[in-house]
């Protein structure tokens, strides 16, 4: 009974994905399922549509910049949170995780007003700053779990042998955190690449990233081009989640199973 329910519910979770993938290979513009044949024309369409190309380039720049900023920022913050005798640690932790809970429309509209006042609306940097903030909770979370599991004796040993603090971090702490840093980078890329609500508010037709361009496309057209692009997105995400699970046992990050007890 339980097994059947779980299978059905997992099917419910996966059903939309299956439909999108199937529709993306549909040869005709009229959506049908199962598809009447196999065709890659919508993939060609998706990859050659100029606005998608421009948005893909924007996505690449914004995601790379924000991931490369968020990972060091978040790692430093996670080290401070776990290792230093901070006053009000709980407060700092919830502050760092707060972008997760602020409604996207509130953050988006606020940033829009702010950027307009500063005359920065045409700049991709507004998007980068927003993405760094939105990605930080994921980086802090995954790095902090690993920092807490580090044996401080290793760092003390290096320090007692005369290594200055920065050297301990570079030669001992960071190498030990490598799997967590890799997972954090993956999370950062996935979250930034898929961010939509805040980006919708602060991008223009010139700076918009892929999810925003996709939103505009869905609102205006119904052909399977979107299904093709979505399939590429889904494929990339599934691969990334699998890789993340390999590098950083995900059940540990979310405290599930025997390790959670």
């Amino acid at each position, binding site marked *: 009974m339980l097994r059947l329910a779980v299978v059905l519910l*997992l099917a419910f979770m996966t059903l939309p994905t299956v439909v999108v993938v199937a529709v993306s290979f549909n040869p005709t513009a009229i959506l049908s399922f199962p598809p009447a044949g196999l065709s890659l024309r919508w993939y060609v369409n998706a990859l050659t549509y100029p606005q998608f190309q421009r948005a893909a380039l924007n996505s690449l720049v914004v995601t790379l910049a924000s991931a490369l900023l968020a990972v060091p920022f978040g790692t430093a913050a996670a080290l401070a949170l776990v290792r230093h005798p901070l006053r009000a640690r709980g407060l700092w932790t919830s502050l760092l995780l707060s*972008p997760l809970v602020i409604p996207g429309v509130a953050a988006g509209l606020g940033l829009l007003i702010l950027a307009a006042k500063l005359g920065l609306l045409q700049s991709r940097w507004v998007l980068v700053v927003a993405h760094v903030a939105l990605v930080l909770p994921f980086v802090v979370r995954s790095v902090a779990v690993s920092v807490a599991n580090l044996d401080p004796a290793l760092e003390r040993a290096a320090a007692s042998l005369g290594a200055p603090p920065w050297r301990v971090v570079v030669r001992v702490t960071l190498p030990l955190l490598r799997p967590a840093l890799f997972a954090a980078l993956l999370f950062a890329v996935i979250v930034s690449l898929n961010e939509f609500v805040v980006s919708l508010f602060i991008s223009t037709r010139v700076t918009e990233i892929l999810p925003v361009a996709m939103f505009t496309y869905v609102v205006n057209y119904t052909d399977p081009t979107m299904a093709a692009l979505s399939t590429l997105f889904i494929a990339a995400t599934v691969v990334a989640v699998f890789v993340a699970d390999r590098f950083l046992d995900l059940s540990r990050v979310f405290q599930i199973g025997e390790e959670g007890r």
Partner: protein
Amino acid sequence: MSFRLLPAVAVLAVFAAALAALFRWSLLEFVPGSLQPGGLTLANFRAVLAPQYVGAIRDTVVLSALTTVLTLVCAYPVAYALARTPSRRVRSLILVLTLAPFFTGAIVRTYAWVLVLGNTVVTWPVPMLFTERGVLVGLVHFSMPTMILILAAALSHIDPVYERAAASLGASPAHVFRRVTLPLSMPGIVSGGLIVFAWTLSAFPTPELLGGGKVKMIANVVKDLGLDSFNWPGAAAFALLALALTLALLTLVGRLSSDRAA
């Protein structure tokens, strides 16, 4: 404060400044046809309760409540399997199937439901797309991963020894579940429910695409006012309403879980 926190805090300061700007603009007068606001006023907050918007607020609360209940019911069995399966491979599989939609962006996920609800796969006996029913299905699907993760974490913290003890004393499996497992997982149910409720209150892409302009939630009103009518002060008041509701609920979650820890 450790200097290591500085870069992260600097980024968050921009977020804080944005929220401050939002707050300030919600108190400024909207001048139609201009992006320059007028003087101080409370009119934007009065407009929140105007007849054309009260419906959106009511729909938001009703849809969020229904989403929370349905998500709890649907997520519980999956979370239970995730927490209790002895096989690491099964756990990994469920986890990846759960997390993949979590990380597949909102747009892709919502578009997928546009296809499913729009009679592409099956012909629905009742209209689904652009109705509250359809939006509800999308919202539940959207909340499932979060709820599964929270419930699975709560269930993982329950020592199976209690369940075994109840069973060895003659309780039927249903009885064990009702009298032991369910009460012990209550903390997860409460915090998961409140978090999903809070998130759904500010849901945007799902009602925007699946509602097709016929179903409006608070966030859709913010977008209509802010991006389509350029009424930033009016939009700011609605955005603050969403923010206040969310923060109030999440504070409640924090209060409840720190009470338990004490």
